[in-house]
C-alpha cells in the first residue's frame, strides 16, 4: 500500500462513512460525521497533492484488478486541485451549517421544516461529497454515471430542504434536469462501450475515439453534462434552485456541485477525445460567452439577493467554457486555427481556466454564505430588505465584497490571475472576441456586486427586525473570501499541480 491508495481511499470513502455516521440522527452523530468527512477529505486531498507533486499522476487499482476489467481511481493535477478546493469549501460550509440550522439539540422534536433540514443536511451533503470526490478520481465511464446519480439525487434533495413552494418546484426541476442529463450520459456510455469495448477513460483515450458513433456519444454526454453544469442555454433551472435552497446548500451547489459535471466535460473533451473538433470547441466557447453576457445582465436585473448570486454563477460558469477554444493550439476563432493533429495545448489557458474554476468555488461559497448571513439576520431575501445590513454584519459585508472582488478579477485574487492568463492567451492568439467578452463580463460583475453592496450600505432604509447571526457563520464566510482574494499570491503552487498531467494526461 502506497500513499496513492491510502489518500484516494480517504478522499472517497471517508466522507461516505461519515455520511452513515451522520445518519445516526443525534446531534453528536451529525457533528462527528461532518468532522470525519471534512477531516478525511482534507487529508486525502492534501496527501494526494504531495504524492502527485512528487511523482506525477497516481492510480489506485480498486479490487486489485485495474482497467479494463476493474475500476481505477486516478489522480492527476486537475483531480487534486478540484479535490482540494472541494475539501476547503466543504469544510467551511460544514462548519457554517452547524450554526445555520439552529440548535441541533432540538433535532428529535424536529418534525418542523427547520428540524428536518438540520437533521438531513449533513448526511445528504456527505453523500454528495463522496460522490464529488469519486467523480474527480474516477477513470471509468460507468463509475462516473453511478457517482453522478448520487450527486444528482443528493443535490436536488438539498434544494428541497427549503420549504417554500418556489424552492420545492425548483428542486423538482433540478432533479428532472439532472436525471435526464444522467440518462443522456448513460446512453453515451452505452454507445462508447458498443464501439470500443471498454469503459476505461485511459483505454478510450488510447483508442482516440473518432467516427460517427464516437461523435454521437460525445454529443449526448456533452448535452447531459452541460445541462447539469447549467451551461447556457440549459441554465434556466439553476437560479431558482440555487437561490431557493438553504444558504449552506446554495453555497455548496453553486461552488462545488456544478464543477463535478464541468470536470467530466473537460475530461471527456480533452483527455479522452483529444480536443474533439475545432468547431465543437468554438461552439462551447460561444455558449460560454453567451452565458457570461446573459447571466450578468440578468443578475443586474434581479431584486433578490440570492438570485443575483445565482445568476452570477450562470455567468461565471461561462468563463470556464471560454477556456475550451483558447486551449486549442494558437487559439481558435483567431483565424490561425490549425487541426488537432499534433496538439500543443496552451498552458496559459489551462492554468487560467482551471484557476478560475477554483477561485469561483471559493468566492461563490463565501458570497452565498455571506448572503445567507444577511438573509438569516433579516429573514428576508429581497435586496431592499438587506438595507443597512453592512453596519450590523460588517464581517459578512466584507466577505461578500472580497468574494465579489475575486469574481470581478481584481488583484491579488485568484480570479485576477485566471482572467489575466486567459486574456494573455486570447491576445497572443489574436482572439479579440474573447478579449472583449472577458472584459465586458468583468465590468458587469463589478456592476452587480456593487449593486448588492450599495443596498447593504444603505442606512436610511434600514429595517428594524434583526436576528443575531452566530459568529461562526460570519467567520466561515470571511475565511473563504480571504482565501479567494489572496489565492492569486500563491498561484505558482497551483500551476505546478495543474501541469501534473496537464490537459491530456493520457496522451
Amino acid at each position, binding site marked *: 500500500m502506497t500513499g496513492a491508495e491510502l489518500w484516494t481511499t480517504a478522499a472517497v*470513502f471517508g466522507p461516505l462513512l461519515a455520511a*452513515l455516521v451522520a445518519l445516526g440522527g443525534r446531534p453528536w452523530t451529525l457533528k462527528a460525521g461532518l468532522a470525519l468527512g471534512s477531516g478525511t477529505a482534507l487529508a486525502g486531498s492534501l496527501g494526494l497533492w504531495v504524492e502527485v507533486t512528487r511523482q506525477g499522476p497516481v492510480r489506485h487499482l*480498486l479490487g486489485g484488478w485495474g482497467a479494463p476489467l476493474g475500476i481505477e481511481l486516478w489522480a492527476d493535477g486537475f483531480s487534486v486541485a478540484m479535490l482540494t478546493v472541494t475539501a476547503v469549501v466543504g469544510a467551511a460550509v460544514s462548519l457554517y451549517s452547524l450554526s445555520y440550522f439552529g440548535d441541533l439539540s432540538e433535532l428529535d422534536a424536529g418534525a*418542523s421544516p427547520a428540524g428536518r433540514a438540520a437533521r438531513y443536511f449533513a448526511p445528504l451533503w456527505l453523500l454528495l461529497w463522496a460522490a464529488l470526490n469519486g467523480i474527480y478520481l474516477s477513470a471509468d465511464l460507468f463509475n462516473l454515471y453511478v457517482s453522478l446519480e448520487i450527486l444528482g439525487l443528493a443535490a436536488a434533495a438539498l434544494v*428541497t430542504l*427549503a420549504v417554500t413552494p418556489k424552492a420545492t418546484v425548483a428542486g423538482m426541476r433540478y432533479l428532472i434536469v439532472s436525471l435526464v442529463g444522467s440518462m443522456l450520459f448513460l446512453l453515451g456510455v452505452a454507445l462508447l462501450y458498443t*464501439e470500443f469495448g471498454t469503459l476505461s477513460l485511459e483505454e478510450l483515450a488510447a483508442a482516440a475515439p473518432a467516427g460517427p458513433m464516437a461523435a454521437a456519444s460525445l454529443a449526448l454526454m456533452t448535452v447531459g453534462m452541460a445541462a447539469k453544469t447549467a451551461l447556457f442555454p440549459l441554465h434556466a433551472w439553476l437560479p431558482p434552485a440555487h437561490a*431557493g435552497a438553504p444558504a449552506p446548500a446554495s453555497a455548496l451547489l453553486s461552488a462545488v456541485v456544478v464543477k463535478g459535471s464541468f470536470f467530466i466535460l473537460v475530461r471527456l473533451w480533452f483527455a479522452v477525445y483529444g480536443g474533439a473538433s475545432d468547431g465543437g470547441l468554438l461552439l462551447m466557447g460561444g455558449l460560454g460567452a453567451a452565458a457570461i453576457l446573459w447571466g450578468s445582465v440578468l443578475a443586474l436585473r434581479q431584486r433578490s439577493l440570492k438570485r443575483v448570486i445565482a445568476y452570477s454563477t450562470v455567468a461565471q460558469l461561462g468563463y470556464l467554457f471560454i477556456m475550451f477554444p483558447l486551449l486549442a493550439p494558437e487559439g481558435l476563432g483567431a483565424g490561425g486555427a490549425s487541426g488537432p493533429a499534433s496538439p500543443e495545448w496552451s498552458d496559459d489557458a489551462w492554468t487560467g481556466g482551471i484557476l478560475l474554476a477554483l477561485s469561483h468555488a471559493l468566492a461563490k461559497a463565501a458570497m452565498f454564505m455571506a448572503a445567507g448571513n444577511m438573509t438569516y439576520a433579516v429573514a428576508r431575501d429581497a435586496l431592499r430588505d438587506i438595507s443597512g445590513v453592512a453596519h450590523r454584519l460588517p464581517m459578512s459585508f466584507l466577505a461578500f465584497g472580497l468574494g465579489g472582488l475575486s469574481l470581478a478579477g481584481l488583484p491579488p485574487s485568484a480570479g485576477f490571475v485566471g482572467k489575466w492568463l486567459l486574456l494573455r492567451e486570447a491576445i497572443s492568439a489574436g482572439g479579440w472576441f474573447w478579449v472583449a467578452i472577458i472584459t465586458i463580463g468583468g465590468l458587469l460583475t463589478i456592476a452587480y456586486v456593487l449593486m448588492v453592496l450599495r443596498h447593504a450600505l444603505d442606512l436610511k432604509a434600514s429595517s428594524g427586525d434583526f436576528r443575531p447571526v452566530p459568529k461562526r457563520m460570519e467567520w466561515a464566510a470571511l475565511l473563504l473570501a480571504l482565501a479567494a482574494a489572496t489565492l492569486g499570491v500563491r498561484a505558482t503552487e497551483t500551476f505546478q499541480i495543474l501541469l501534473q498531467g496537464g490537459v491530456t494526461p493520457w496522451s
Partner: protein
Amino acid sequence: MSGPTDPQANNATGAASETGTGVDHAHVRPLLEDDGSRDGPAILTWMVGLLLVPAGVLLALGLRGAADSRDPRIPDLIAEHLPETGVSNPVTGVLLNFRGYDTLLEVAVLVAAMVAVWSLDRGQRVFGLPAGRARDEPVLAAVLRLAVPTAFLTAVYLTWLGSSEPAGAFQAGALLAGAGVLLTVARVMRPPTAAALPVRIIAAGGVAGFVVVGIAVLPFTGAFLAYPEGWAYPLILGLEAALAVAVAVILVELFVDVPSIPAPDSTLDTVDPTGDPLGRALAPDATPPDPGAP
C-alpha cells in the same frame, strides 16, 4: 424552533398519525388527472418529434455499424480471471469483485434516495394503522401466511445462489422488500419510521459493510476491496447477505415513506414565501433587543 410549525408536523415521526383513519384521497384525484391542456403547443410537440426522428435514425444506423476490434475483449478477460474471483457466476464476479466499487456506490445511491425521501416533509402516512390492528380478512391472512415465509426462504436461497447462478443480493432484497410491503399494506407490520435507529443501522449496513471490508483488506493486499487469496468467497457471501437485508429495508422505506398529499389548503400557507428558506419567520417576540440599533 420558533417558526410556525407545520400542521402536519406532529404526524411525521410519532405514532399520532397512525391512530387516524387514513387519508381522504378525494382531493388527490384531480392532481393525477391530465387532460394535456398544460402541455406546450402542438407545434412544439411536433417539432421536438421531428428533431428526434433523425437522431433515432442516426443512432440506429450507428449501432448497426458498430464494431469493437479490441483484443483481448472484456468477455474473454472475465472468463480468464473468473476463477480468481471466488464465485463461478460471471455477473456476480463483475458486480462483487471486478467492479465491486460500482456496486458499493449503487447501494449508496439507494441510501441517498432514502435519506432524500426522508428529508421531504411528510403529510399523513399513507399506511397509518398501528400494528396489531391488522385487517380482519381471512383470505388476506391466509395469503400472508403462505407468501411471506416463502418469500423469506426464497430470499435466503437467492442470496446463497448468487455466487454460482443468476441471482444475488439485489434479487433477494427485492423479494424481501416485497414481503415487507405486503405486510405493511395489509397493516400487519407497522411501517418502519425514519426515526427508528435499527432501520438506519440496517439500511446503512450495506454500504458500511462494503467500506469496512474494503478498508480492512487494504493493508494486506494494497488495494481497496482487493480480497486476500482464499477470502473472496466468504467475504462476498457476507457482503451479499448484508446487501440483501439493506436493500430490502431501503426499498420498503422508499415505498412507505413517500409523502402523501394533504388537502392543498392545509400546508400551502404555513410558510412565509418571502422569508427564511426554512420557514423560520422572524417573529417580533423572538427578536432580542439589538444594542447596536440607533
